[in-house]
């Protein structure tokens, strides 16, 4: 397979196209502009459409329309732009439409800055929008993984009729790494016989809708979503466990920061400290199973984030009081350094072992 050197953002676009995505609706925002720009260039020759919407809200609602019409469709943005899409995402989840939403997170709150951050974990994993809904959230840690997860995201979206989020950060979006494009892994997908394509006078109208005015109709509908979420939890949870057997401390980190932790693992090794890593690949469903078996040696979990502490909530729920949960984070666009992580680990272990 040919190796290419590619920016994360471009790789997202290329992977989406490879996965059969022919419709993209977006709005510019740093640091993800190369995604719409790539799609604007590549889709028209393929007979697809790129629309630069008038806003993030318009974009997500165009996605709703296109997904309802049966297309593989994607949108992308970054933190404040994703905040604007929350109502739309809630509609898409409620109407059970498949689509892929990319968030290359930047530093926040407010306008914040444009440097990488991971402070949209809450917004991604537990409904930034209204109501009881979730969506699978993938957090790639390399460009290669980005490509694979974007392809997977389209399959998962279609398989479960759900929006799927790719949660990267400015670093994933802007960095280049070498990457290969394998053939997408195809699932056995149900036919989109619910899509609005015109009745052709041959069947009853298809209706895409999230309104259920009667509680006794809405409640079972939500239950249907919840049941689906249980299946996703069971079948789609992904994580990686590194160096965890007998670890003194187990770090929990996702996306780019998991790579910082890998460097910290090496540095710890040099000092005779065993640092483990649980790397959630799906943030929702959160890989609670990864936390089940821990060695009696392990003193604590350490959530390392480019935020003021968001995933740490899930780590606490996973730890369930068995061992302490510690947190180390940098924010505002700063990236934790391996040495800082090592220092924190030593701190947890009482000033070194």
């Amino acid at each position, binding site marked *: 397979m040919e190796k290419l050197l590619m920016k994360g953002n471009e790789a997202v676009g290329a992977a989406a196209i490879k996965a059969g995505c022919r419709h993209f609706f977006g709005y510019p925002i740093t640091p993800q502009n190369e995604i719409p720009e790539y799609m604007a260039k590549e889709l028209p020759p393929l007979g697809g*459409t790129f629309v630069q919407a008038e806003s993030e809200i318009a974009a997500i609602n*165009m996605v709703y329309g296109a997904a309802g019409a*049966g297309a593989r469709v994607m949108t992308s943005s970054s933190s404040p732009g994703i905040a604007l899409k929350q109502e*739309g995402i809630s509609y898409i989840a409620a109407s059970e439409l498949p689509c892929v939403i990319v968030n290359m997170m930047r530093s926040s709150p407010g306008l914040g800055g444009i440097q990488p951050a991971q402070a949209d974990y809450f917004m991604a994993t537990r409904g930034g929008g209204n109501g009881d809904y979730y969506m699978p959230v993938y957090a790639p840690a390399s460009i290669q993984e980005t490509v694979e997860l974007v392809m997977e995201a389209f399959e998962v979206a279609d398989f479960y009729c759900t929006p799927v989020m790719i949660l990267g950060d400015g670093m994933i979006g802007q960095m280049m790494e070498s990457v290969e494009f394998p053939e997408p892994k195809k699932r056995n997908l149900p036919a989109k016989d619910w899509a609005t394509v015109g009745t052709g006078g041959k069947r009853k109208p298809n209706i895409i809708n999230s309104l259920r005015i009667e509680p006794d109709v809405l409640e079972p509908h939500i239950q249907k979503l919840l049941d689906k979420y249980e299946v996703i939890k069971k079948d789609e949870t992904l994580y990686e466990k590194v160096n965890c057997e007998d670890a003194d401390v187990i770090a929990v980190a996702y996306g780019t920061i998991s790579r910082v932790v890998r460097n910290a693992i090496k540095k710890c090794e040099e000092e005779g400290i065993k640092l483990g890593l649980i790397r959630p690949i799906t943030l929702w469903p959160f890989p609670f199973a990864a936390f089940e078996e821990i060695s009696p040696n392990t003193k604590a979990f350490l959530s390392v984030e480019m935020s003021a502490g968001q995933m740490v909530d899930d780590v606490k729920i996973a730890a369930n009081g068995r061992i302490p949960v510690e947190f180390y984070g940098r924010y505002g666009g700063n990236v934790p350094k391996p040495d800082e992580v090592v220092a924190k680990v030593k701190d947890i272990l009482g000033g070194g072992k």
Partner: protein
Amino acid sequence: MSLVFEKTKGLTDVPFHYCPGCTHGIVHRLVAENLVELGVLGSTIGVAPVGCAVFAYNYFNCDMQEAAHGRAPAVATGIKRVHPDNVVFTYQGDGDLAAIGTAETVHAAVRGENITIIFINNAIYGMTGGQMAPTTLIGQKATTAPYGRQKEVQGSPIRVSEMLATLEGAAFIERVSVDSPGNVRKAKKAIKKAFECQIQKKGFSMVEVLSTCPTNWGMTPVDSLTWLEENMMPYYPLGNIRTPEED
């Protein structure tokens, strides 16, 4: 004995939930009849708004999508870009289209998006109980304009059709009314032209329909028609505002 009028097959059998005398029902019929007469019902995809017409997806006998409040033109764009040869229309109220959905409406027109918008201007937020709409007339009372709309406080009502007509992408725009049998017939023709414009891929088309809301205007349905004629029509003059050149 020949049948002069019966309910169109373009509508389902579900009875309308609209209040007695609400002209939403008339407009539904006109849209549906046109889709049938143009032979495109089976290839049509409609988009329902949030507003009193929120259940429109139960009424039109074609594929339908329910949009978030104000976003119907964006939803329609998404659909149309996937199925450029299908007929795609939205059905929207004045709150939906001219308030929260202003950007989506304007930019569907800017893009010359090849869709048709049926715009129900009843000068009020019907569904939520009579709040002021951007098209509420000066002096008209609404629950959020209890002292009547004042130019100095809430500004003057927006003439959406005239505003959109400044955009090159807007191929067909006409304002009609459904206050009398004659105007209903004209309205039907305008809606037909709008759909034809789309079928011929000439770009964005919109028909603004002056409509009543007896419930929130606090009048009988019959008085509402008179109020529409006497108050709305002078401010919102009927007529064609844009037509594709070849026509």
